[in-house]
């Protein structure tokens, strides 16, 4: 037993109780402030969190296992197959280090409105996806492809963070990536919104556009993207 108070005594008590989900709201807030105060790099905090989380999990593992209903695993996999997955950081390997796009690597949090979501989902042929709530809803969707291929840009006029949604897209040739461009006015040059690489044909990628634009385009560019299009657009759509 410790006889003198250390900087982690109070936070240890809060962490241990939080691991059991037993904190009342004011204490939970105190824990949040405490962790934030110590910072993400606090090794002692990290250790306490991991070890108390393991201790709580042990309480779970002490119970006799309970079988799932018949077919539960297959149902889970069927549900999973229908989802667009969000893999953090993807396709960030295609960005230049310290890349110029402010949204890069941080997935925008959207609540898709029913109409937009329906359009995306039906067109992409997927059953469902979930995005964390918190940002404004994308109210406009630009369809860039037709037929089996899906390529859309979902955005909110005035907002610069937008989303590229794609399905059934071919992989770019080795060493190349898709790059999205936008044109602010009819006379302006194409500006880069970001690069993306489909996985298994699908893509759900954050991009950065201007507050308003009259056209979007996609071309194949060398990995890392280009400052200006170096190839003819594969897709070009007036907004």
């Amino acid at each position, binding site marked *: 037993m410790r006889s003198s108070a250390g900087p982690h005594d109070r936070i240890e008590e809060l962490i241990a109780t939080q691991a*059991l989900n037993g904190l009342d709201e004011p204490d939970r807030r105190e824990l949040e402030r405490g962790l934030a105060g110590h910072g993400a790099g606090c090794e002692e905090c990290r250790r306490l969190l991991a070890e*108390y989380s393991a201790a709580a*999990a042990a309480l779970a*593992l002490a119970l006799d296992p309970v079988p799932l209903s018949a077919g539960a695993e297959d149902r889970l996999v069927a549900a999973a197959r229908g989802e667009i997955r969000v893999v953090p950081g993807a396709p960030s390997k295609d960005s230049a280090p310290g890349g110029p796009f402010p949204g890069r690597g941080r997935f925008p949090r959207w609540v898709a409105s029913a109409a937009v979501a329906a359009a995306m989902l039906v067109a992409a042929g997927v059953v469902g996806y979930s995005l964390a709530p918190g940002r404004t809803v994308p109210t406009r969707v630009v369809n860039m492809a037709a037929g089996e291929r899906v390529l859309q840009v979902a955005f909110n006029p005035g907002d610069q963070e937008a989303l590229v949604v794609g399905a059934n897209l071919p992989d770019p040739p080795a060493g190349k990536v898709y790059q999205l461009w936008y044109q602010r006015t009819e006379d302006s040059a194409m500006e880069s919104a970001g690069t993306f690489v489909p996985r298994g044909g699908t893509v759900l990628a954050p991009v950065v556009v201007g507050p308003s634009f009259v056209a979007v385009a996609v071309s194949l560019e060398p990995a890392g993207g280009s400052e200006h299009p170096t190839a003819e657009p594969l897709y070009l759509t007036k907004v």
Partner: protein
Amino acid sequence: MVQAVDVRVVAVRNLEDARDSDLVRRVAGGDEAAFRLLFQRYAQAAKALAVRIVRQAFLAEEIVQEAFLALWRHPGAYREDRGSFRAWLMSTVHHRAVDLIRREEAQRRRGEEARPDASAADRAADPAEEVVEQAALADARQRVRVALADIPPEQRDVLELMYYGGKTQSAIARELDLPLGTVKSRTLLGMRRLRADLAGGMR
């Protein structure tokens, strides 16, 4: 005085955790077989926890499915440097289960309609699959039960009310008619003991 540490136990646990982390990495790459393996390994333990808290097999199973789907959608939600996969999974399931019963309790207090009794539906549900379990988990369960038996009963009672009962510290203090400070110290002492037992693999 040197404490005897069961190195073999610690090594096995680390190996299990390393295997799980590898499976999660594969899940992040869209590997369905890895996803199934994780489910096979942990779904029954996860459901046991959920059932203990929400008391309804159907709801418990939904909670487990949702936790695994959450992993599939956002594999980055589990981070290796924050602990083992099994701890993350149980924490996720626990959180959702406790949320559910607290919301229902709040509704009950507001006099709102209770959830229709689903126990009849549960009984009519598909016959359950056999309990198929890996030796490693069965071993872990044994060790944990021994460790729990080591914890003084007044501390263990608080831990169980909190974890299995989904109650907050203040709710436990009211229920047991104890000062809040007593509940807090019993929680911390009990958890410290459990944490020490597990970290050392001591027997």
